[in-house]
């Protein structure tokens, strides 16, 4: 599904060059539920942006569904994003002047689905996520959890093979966060690859595999079973 080979990425601001990703190698299989952890500045958001083709990388190779994603022009990148990837952001990134249904239907607009069909489909997804009564409300009339569910509905509507979530629970309380993780698990069980960037341990603990980033390289990859074992060993020692 995803194969990264020696990915490098640096940002230049004025005369300063900040080397953020320093050779990342990673493979994520289809249908996995994976989290990326790391302290701030470790490069986790940058990695997510590269994975989501929201940003390009300087060096290395990135294969998505077997296709090399490299130096894509904006038009092509937009096409890939539209077909393969659903995004969920920490700050929700809903369009404030569009109501819930219109926000959810937006990706279908760029898939050239007719208005009637995309609104119908959007209502279906809102219903699934328990937001049907809120379909005609603007985002600022919804609670944080509702907004994030709305964003998830929007990410799902284009039927992507992968969902990238950037700190999806960062703006939510712990109970809502857990509900959100259950939702992600459910989505994952439908066969969609889910990649969550987070710095919260208990969120990461709900995923199958934890990728720890530190200073732009992968420090460790822990699969969940091993982690439990590792934790046990720690407590026994």
């Amino acid at each position, binding site marked *: 599904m995803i194969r990264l080979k020696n990915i490098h990425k640096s940002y230049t601001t004025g005369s300063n060059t900040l080397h953020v990703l320093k050779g990342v190698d990673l493979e994520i299989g289809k249908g996995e539920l994976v989290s990326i952890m790391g302290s701030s500045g470790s490069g986790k958001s940058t990695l997510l942006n590269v994975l989501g083709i929201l*940003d390009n990388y300087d060096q290395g190779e990135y294969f998505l569904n077997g296709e090399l994603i490299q130096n894509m022009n*904006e038009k092509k990148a937009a096409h890939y994003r539209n077909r393969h990837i659903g995004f969920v952001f920490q700050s929700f990134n809903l369009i404030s002047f569009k109501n819930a249904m219109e926000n959810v239907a937006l990706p279908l607009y*760029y898939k050239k689905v*007719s*208005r009637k069909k995309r609104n119908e489909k959007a209502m279906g997804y809102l219903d699934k996520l328990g937001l049907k009564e809120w379909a005609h409300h603007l985002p600022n009339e919804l609670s944080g959890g509702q907004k994030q569910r709305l964003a998830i509905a929007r990410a799902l509507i284009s039927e992507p093979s992968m969902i990238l979530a950037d700190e999806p629970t960062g703006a939510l309380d712990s109970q809502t966060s857990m509900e959100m993780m259950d939702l992600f698990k459910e989505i994952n069980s439908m066969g969609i690859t889910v990649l969550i960037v987070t710095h919260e341990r208990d969120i990461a603990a709900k995923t199958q595999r934890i990728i720890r980033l530190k200073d732009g390289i992968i420090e460790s990859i822990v699969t969940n079973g091993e982690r439990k074992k590792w934790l046990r060993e720690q407590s026994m020692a």
Partner: protein
Amino acid sequence: MFDLDKWQEIYSTINKNKLRTFLTGFSVAWGIFMLIILLGSGYGLENGVQKEFKGDAENTLWVNQGTTSISYKGYKPGRFIEFGNKDYEQIKKVEDVEFISGNFRIWQNNTLSYKNEYGAFDIFCTHPDYGEVEKLIPVKGRFLNQVDMIECRKVTAIGNLVEKALFKGEDPIGKYIHVTGIPFKVIGVFEDPGGDRDVSRIYIPLSTGQMVFNRLNEIGTIAMTVGNASVDRSNEMTEEIRKDLAQRHHFDPADQRAVFIWNNVENYMKFMTLFANIRLFIWVIGIGTIIAGIVGVSNIMMIVVKERTKEIGIRKSMGATPGSIISLIMLESILITSFAGYLGLVLGVGLLEIVSKNLPDTDYFSKPEVNINVALGATLILIIAGAIAGFVPARKAAAVRPVVALRDE
């Protein structure tokens, strides 16, 4: 472009951002409205001043008879110089003479009549060119022509006050009026911006006048226009005419009282300069207003795009191509500016029409109106300026990687 879905998307964006739409639209509408009002007022001023000075603003030379004041070649001073047809023929040959007419006048003690209506009006006996020299405006029929002149036809062109006095609403063309008992056929009615006096007279061919009033070969005044001749050239012409007359009528060319030549060209030039300056003033105001409008629209478009940067980022992460982003913003901006520009145009022209209809003609201001092509052109310029002003930042915003656009929280 004519994708219905796109228009629906634009419509919903406009509909949900009423304040932004209103502000953009208002600045465009206001710019156009002010432009129309200013251009219209400027035109009104030009009209008013032109009307005020029209009578004086003619590039004419008038040659009048006088009395000699210097003895010359054995002739005593105090001799009256009388012009004849020969003088007309000679002066006509002077270079730069455009229209020329000899004439003599018979003042108001002549009764004109039609049926039972009587009136005392001036009679002007002239060449056909006189219509051009005096800038008469034909209302009905025609002015005198060369054939009337050659055949000494008993025809007349009458001023519109004469028409009103004698015909009382009847169509005068082809009817006969009696001039000192002689019937003349009316061939035309004319108007003259110079005022009432200039339209309470009738014109008959000079040849007919000389015959009927027994003034064979007599001409009182010779009037001509000089086309585009400069002030200097008109002064030269004055001297040429004076010399020519001096030779034929035997008077000292230096004798300023033998003939009076009134040169209106200098005056004419002054007024032409005045009119040109007024026009320039109007253009300066107009261009200034357009520039102010362009700056305003550009400003708003840039702010609009800036405000939408995040929305652009969201749309891009949802799979919008840069092209679709640019066309969305551009079409919205063009739609708003065109609609608002048209509204401003209609309101401005409407107000001018109302003012023009209801405002009594005052001195120096009359009939404000605006050249519709200029107004449409100005609107188009504003729309294009708005589109360009929107295009540059829209292209920039659309080219930005979505991650950058989404970052500013």
